[in-house]
């Protein structure tokens, strides 16, 4: 236990992020408004990002986001076709206490663990856990609005606790 605390203390000293005060919370309930509605989505996906990082497949389809819970939630569905048919259901919830968005990507009957984050300087960054071939990895999503009617989405995995990132899902969306 003592050794654990010492390690933590050393980490805190070595890591300047601990010394900086947290930025004041802003009301981010409208930060996902840009993504509401129907968009054409062009998707590039790496089926095996660590094994074959240069192999990409493409999909085209429709992404629909419907506001729920008086704007405190988003219901996102994706229907796209490529080498296979993609059918995705995602649910995003704004936590009015932490001012963060929790992004859920249900699999089967399980809501799963959320990716959590917020928008800063025009980019939304969300961190969570995922699995790749049964191993737990970090997953990062970045949402970048490009004007009122388009945005860019990129998801990456890290197998080394965030030192390096490998993209596996990139989408460019244009409002229909």
């Amino acid at each position, binding site marked *: 236990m003592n050794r654990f605390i010492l390690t933590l203390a050393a980490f805190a000293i070595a890591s300047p992020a601990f010394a900086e005060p947290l930025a004041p919370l802003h009301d981010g309930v409208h930060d996902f408004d840009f993504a509401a509605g129907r968009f054409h989505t062009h998707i590039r996906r790496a089926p095996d990002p660590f094994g074959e990082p240069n192999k990409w497949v493409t999909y085209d389809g429709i992404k629909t986001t*419907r506001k729920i*819970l*008086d704007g*405190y939630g988003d219901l996102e569905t994706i229907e796209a076709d490529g080498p296979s048919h993609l059918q995705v*259901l995602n649910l995003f919830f704004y936590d009015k206490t*932490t001012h963060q968005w929790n992004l859920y990507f249900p699999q089967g*009957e399980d809501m799963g663990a959320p990716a959590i984050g917020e928008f800063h300087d025009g980019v939304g960054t969300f961190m969570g856990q995922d699995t790749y071939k049964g191993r737990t990895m970090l997953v990062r999503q970045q949402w970048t609005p490009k004007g009122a009617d388009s945005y860019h989405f990129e998801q990456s995995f890290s197998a080394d606790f965030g030192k390096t990132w490998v993209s596996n899902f990139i989408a460019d969306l244009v409002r229909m």
Partner: protein
Amino acid sequence: MVSRKRFALLALALLAASPALARDGLHDFDSEVGTWTIHTKRLMHPLAHANDWVTYDGTKTVIPAWGGRANIAEVREDGAAGHLNFVAIRLYDPTAQQWSLNFMSAGNATFGIPLRGELRNGGIEFIGPDTQNGRSILVRFTSKEENADRASSEQYFSDDGGKTWELNWINTYTRTKGHAQ
């Protein structure tokens, strides 16, 4: 060694005793898709020997996803006790042939333990653990259809491991004409 005939009889007896086994429930919620008015009676202080029932009125909207394997019901209601706005997310597990039921209210972002359920006793019945004032309890949620345009649901809590159940939530639903699918 069990004879083949005896084994067949045993299997039959097992089947008869387990009516919920091996039933595809994928379409259990198809008929709920659409818009409904909702009237709610809610016990404000469950498991407290209270009788402080309040009423709410509003709408319920059910949206399908994943080709029917998931659906999202959003409830918006108002009453003397305030405003209710939450979603119930139902996800189907084709292997277990059960649904999970996940609740989230506006402004929150963390799910509790999901209830699990299936068609039982003529309605869909969900059951699972929860907490009430820091104590572990059991929750039972049942929903029944009277006909294509009328349905009801009830929620019960138990703090004695399921021996006795206290009713604390009653919803009645009427389909809004013109929105039926």
